[in-house]
């Protein structure tokens, strides 16, 4: 593919205050993995997102201070939950004493069941609360990145390209609305699930992409996000095993993630599909992804789901023995199907890139030229540059590469484009 391997965003910086060294890294990884589960359980128990966040943050800080020194406890989740719960109890007691409602407040804090089922349900509750339709879509995504992804507010702001002050206000307003308007913390009843799934799927995919698009592979937070997206996609399939959207989303995430190890070279530069070592692709992930596409397609005979179709495109690439033997006819047909349900300029751009591979750069360039509304999208210019370069129109290609470089790209991606520019 000529375009970026996934939606690209610049990456949030690693936790500056974190201690370093292998023990600290291992501890940080476990903490990241458990953080959203602890938060989800605490929200259920206390019914208060802000309080739960503060208490979870407190436990995370304590763990980051002590685990690298003392080792990771046998039951890390239990450790974190106990510390966070103690902290929440302190706060509730203090506030209840003020209001004279101590007994009532403490009754809220039953010891939380820690069965895998309960943890799974708590997480799903958190997903559906963050993605409640009474919140705007922008807010849903921001809240999910903050609570489920564990990103700091500044990181969420950077990821969604919004000033930090705006993001702080948006998140504060969202948490107040959840509390005041009584947005329930629960998994919706079965009849409401399909209507709620679109927002949830979009959010989960964005969380995955936030992690996946980082590409550099040495940033714990971002790898953690990709894993979180994958885990949430699996949870949705557990919850809704017959929903094509859930199946398609998991298939898509698995197929994209199967390329994780092949996506960067030794210097951390992103590699295009054509340059990747296919032996590094995760065969097991591809097998499950392809099986899920089949399952999802059999459930969508006449109304294709956009995630299923995107997964089908990813499957064409995943199954091709080499880039040269990519079944471009099939890829292009799937793009045509995708356009019937999800017609966006970016989809048109990706289709044009596939046409260029099958019919040559001139055919691709004609299609790219007809796409409007992508002047601010770096991959639009990069794709044009590549096609012009292949046609031997070096000056025009250079102009296009410069246009791409003037826009928002992460460091390694920009370095790649500068190399191409030097060849023009």
């Amino acid at each position: 593919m000529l375009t970026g391997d996934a939606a690209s965003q610049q990456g949030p910086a690693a936790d500056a205050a974190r201690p370093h060294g292998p023990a600290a890294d291992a501890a940080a990884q476990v903490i990241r993995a458990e953080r959203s589960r602890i938060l989800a359980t605490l929200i259920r128990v206390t019914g208060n997102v802000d309080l739960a966040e503060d208490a979870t943050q407190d436990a995370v800080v304590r763990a980051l201070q002590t685990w690298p020194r003392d080792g990771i406890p046998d039951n890390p989740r239990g450790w974190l939950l106990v510390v966070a719960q103690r902290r929440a109890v302190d706060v509730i007691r203090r506030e209840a004493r003020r209001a004279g409602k101590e007994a009532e407040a403490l009754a809220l804090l039953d010891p939380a069941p820690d069965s895998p089922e309960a943890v799974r349900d708590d997480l799903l509750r958190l997903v559906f609360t963050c993605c409640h339709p009474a919140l705007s879509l922008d807010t849903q995504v921001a809240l999910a990145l903050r609570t489920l992804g564990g990103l700091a507010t500044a990181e969420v702001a950077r990821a969604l390209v919004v000033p930090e002050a705006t993001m702080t206000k948006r998140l504060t307003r969202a948490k107040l609305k959840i509390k005041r308007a009584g947005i329930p913390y629960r998994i919706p009843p079965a009849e409401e699930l399909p209507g709620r799934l679109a927002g949830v799927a979009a959010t989960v995919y964005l969380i995955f992409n936030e992690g996946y698009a980082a590409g550099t592979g040495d940033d714990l937070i971002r790898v953690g996000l990709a894993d979180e997206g994958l885990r949430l996609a699996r949870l949705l399939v557990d919850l809704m095993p017959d929903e094509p959207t859930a199946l398609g989303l998991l298939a898509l995430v698995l197929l994209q993630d199967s390329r994780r190890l092949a996506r960067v070279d030794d210097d951390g530069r992103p590699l295009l599909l054509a340059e990747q070592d296919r032996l590094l692709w995760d065969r097991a992930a591809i097998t499950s992804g392809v099986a899920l596409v089949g399952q999802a397609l059999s459930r969508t005979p006449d109304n294709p789901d956009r995630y299923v179709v995107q997964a089908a495109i990813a499957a064409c690439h995943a199954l091709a023995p080499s880039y040269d033997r990519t079944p471009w006819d099939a890829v292009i047909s799937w793009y045509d199907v995708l356009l019937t349900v999800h017609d966006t300029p970016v989809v048109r751009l990706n289709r044009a890139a596939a046409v260029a591979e099958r019919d040559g750069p001139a055919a691709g360039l004609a299609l790219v030229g007809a796409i409007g509304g992508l002047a601010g999208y770096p991959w639009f210019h990069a794709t044009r540059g590549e096609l012009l370069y292949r046609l031997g129109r070096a000056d025009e290609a250079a102009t296009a590469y410069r246009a791409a470089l003037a826009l928002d790209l992460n460091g390694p991606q920009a370095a790649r484009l500068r190399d191409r520019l030097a060849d023009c």
Partner: protein
Amino acid sequence: MPTYIALTYTADVDWSSPEQADEMAEYREFGAAARAVIRGGSALYPTATATTVRVSGGKGGDVLATDGPYAETKEALTGFYLLECADLDEAVATVAKMPAAWNGAVEVRPVIPL
């Protein structure tokens, strides 16, 4: 349990006119069905009967009463309900059965307990 106010915004109508009998009957039907959560509410006379009051110059200042609703819009505030529901989902599900939901829109807001 939280209390919500559901403000119905529809074309400005006169509920007391005989032409509104059918729709009023639909509201009565809704009222009977949602009796468990309805704590109060009323239909309002049309906006032509509205008076907007302001006090200029701060507390104790001049009372300025003007003809018409606070905000002149195509769809007007035509009635309200007070609902006591477990959470926003129940409030939304209840409000979705009000005729105003398909004849206009209903704004749901939590009420601060006094």
